[in-house]
């Protein structure tokens, strides 16, 4: 899986490269959080669907916010989507027990999502100061 830092170093405009490490670290952190929500909800379509929809909306909002801040890598969406299988959700061949252990380590995930305690991706990237 390509980490956000590698991708952003290549994709951000030269003027914004000094922010790329910071943005990439924040993006990786949020993706790690959503990896839990998306993976551990996979067996329950009723829970998984709204989480997936929320994630997709946040990616779209983030692309917009990055564009407004003049930091828009053209294919950020492709990058995030590239982490979908094997990145944000486990490979199909992953043993059931491995997924159970992973989710047991994050046992409060459903409560966190239900209580809106999840990180909002555009806010996490803290782009306010980057608006041209």
């Amino acid at each position, binding site marked *: 899986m390509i980490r956000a830092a590698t991708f952003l170093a290549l994709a951000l405009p030269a003027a914004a490269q000094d922010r790329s490490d910071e943005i990439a670290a924040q993006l990786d952190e949020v993706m790690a959080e959503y990896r839990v929500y998306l*993976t*551990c*909800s*996979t*067996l*329950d*379509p*009723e*829970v998984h669907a709204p989480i997936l929809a929320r994630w997709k909306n946040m990616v779209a909002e983030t692309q917009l916010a990055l564009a407004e801040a003049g930091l828009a890598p053209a294919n950020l969406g492709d990058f995030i989507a590239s982490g979908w299988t094997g990145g944000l959700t*486990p*490979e*199909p*061949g*992953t*043993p*059931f*027990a*491995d*997924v*159970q252990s992973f*989710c*047991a380590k994050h*046992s409060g995930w*459903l*409560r966190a999502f239900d209580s809106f305690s999840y990180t909002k991706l555009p806010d996490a990237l803290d782009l306010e100061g980057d608006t041209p």
Partner: protein
Amino acid sequence: MRAARGGIALALALSATPALALTDGQKDQVMLWWQQAMAEQTVVLTCAATQNDLEKSLRKRWEGIRQQTLAAMAGAGWPAGELKTLRAASAPDALRKPADTPFGEVIAWCNTFPDWFPVARDLAFTALDAEVARVLSDTAP
């Protein structure tokens, strides 16, 4: 001393004698309830495996139901060997999909039971203990 020996002999005789005479029809009914309940538990215990809190609560609930049912069957004179087999086969870890099952297969399998979550949340599965007790209570002494 003689009275004590007599008491032990009587106790052994009672413990070796089934409390109730079970008919084949009743035994078949009881086992059909077990089959149904175990099939349901296989679904909820497998598909809730990534929701730790729910899985723990389902496991606890199923443990209570099956232990109570097994105790009632023992009280009705069900053969001990059959109860032992049933106890092992109905254990949560025996019911759930094996640990090495590819997760993709588990997802596809759970997706064939779209209503598993409301069933699990509302505990809307077979009341095995009540159904088996009902069948056993029909047994004539």
